[in-house]
């Protein structure tokens, strides 16, 4: 397979696009496609300030790199979750994010140290909440709250995450399997700001296969953490990705059509917004919007710890 743009040997073959590109032209294509998604879904403009949620993994570091190369004002936020489990996972991933930031003096990295700020690491909170083996939902709640807080406090216009098409297709697959209509209603590359304290969220990589974000990171020589979070072993989303990739292997483009046709169907009215959205009010402790009657889920999570300090 030769590169379609120069006839050199291809470094990556994207069967769903019938497109092979070399190490020189693939990054060029990757930037063009990212810009296309940003424009297509009206994610943000060059006049706006973007906060990239950086984990130290391939997708988020690739996203930060691409946005900077496209000339956007993009800073990063890293949430230190205090996950060790014998592999210093958080410490090593933070090092990757910090190393990237140090090579890009124009970009600023904000580090949120959860154990230092709230007195407990994710594994400790999960232990206290009797979920020591599967802390992922608690971790997700904490990350969403803190990323939103940093975006609002820093005056950013938008929060960008490195979710790729495989992430989105796996989420969609899980939501369809269980007909989680409310989740399906909210799945989209852009979640608008609500004007009451929720920042706009965007996923500029939503049309890239995970293999393509990995290829970009490798070709660009971006040093990222290859290891998975130790708590991700056996996660349902990973099983869904494997299933979708088996389908993709037999039928190139299956994964892409599953997700992009869902987006098209949504744009034509499938899963239209609910008639009565849940009423939100500011959490009396942190001020972020919540539908809970009193404290938001995040503040309730820490109630005992914060009271004890």
């Amino acid at each position: 397979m030769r590169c379609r743009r120069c006839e050199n040997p291809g470094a990556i073959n994207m069967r769903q696009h019938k497109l092979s590109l070399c190490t020189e032209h693939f990054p060029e294509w990757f930037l063009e496609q990212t810009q296309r998604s940003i424009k297509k879904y009206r994610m943000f403009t060059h006049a706006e300030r973007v906060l990239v949620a950086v984990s130290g993994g391939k997708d988020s570091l690739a996203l930060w790199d691409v946005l900077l190369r496209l000339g956007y004002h993009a800073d990063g936020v890293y949430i230190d979750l205090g996950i060790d489990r014998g592999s210093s996972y958080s410490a090593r991933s933070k090092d990757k994010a910090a190393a990237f930031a140090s090579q890009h003096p124009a970009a600023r990295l904000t580090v949120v140290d959860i154990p230092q700020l709230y007195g407990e690491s994710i594994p400790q909170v999960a232990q206290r909440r009797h979920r020591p083996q599967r802390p992922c939902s608690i971790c997700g709640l904490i990350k969403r709250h803190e990323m939103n807080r940093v975006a609002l406090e820093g005056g950013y216009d938008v929060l960008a995450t490195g979710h790729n098409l495989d992430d989105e297709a796996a989420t969609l697959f899980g939501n369809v399997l269980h007909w989680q209509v409310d989740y399906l209603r909210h799945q989209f590359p852009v979640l608008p700001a609500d004007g009451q304290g929720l920042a706009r969220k965007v996923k500029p990589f939503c049309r890239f296969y995970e293999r393509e974000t990995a290829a970009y990171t490798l070709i660009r020589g971006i040093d990222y953490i290859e290891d998975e979070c130790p708590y991700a072993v056996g996660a349902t989303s990973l099983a869904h990705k494997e299933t979708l990739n088996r389908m993709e292997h037999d039928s190139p483009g299956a994964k892409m059509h599953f997700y992009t046709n869902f987006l098209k169907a949504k744009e034509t009215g499938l899963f239209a917004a609910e008639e009565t959205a849940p009423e939100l009010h500011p959490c009396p402790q942190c001020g972020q919007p919540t539908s809970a009657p009193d404290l938001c889920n995040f503040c309730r999570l820490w109630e005992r710890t914060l009271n004890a300090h």
Partner: protein
Amino acid sequence: MHIVYRDKEWFVDQELTVNQMLKYLKLLPENVLVVRNGQLIAEDQKLQPGDEVKIVSVISGG
């Protein structure tokens, strides 16, 4: 050639394509990328004895 994938390694002394190697190791090309002597290569490329090959898993998340 020396092949590394996660914490496993293999030594192979015959020429084969990336596709043949992945099939032998029962890996789907959709789940991995292959780096030969530091360069990303596509599935139709040939691997020679003496090559240093790294198979990179691309699936992440939880």
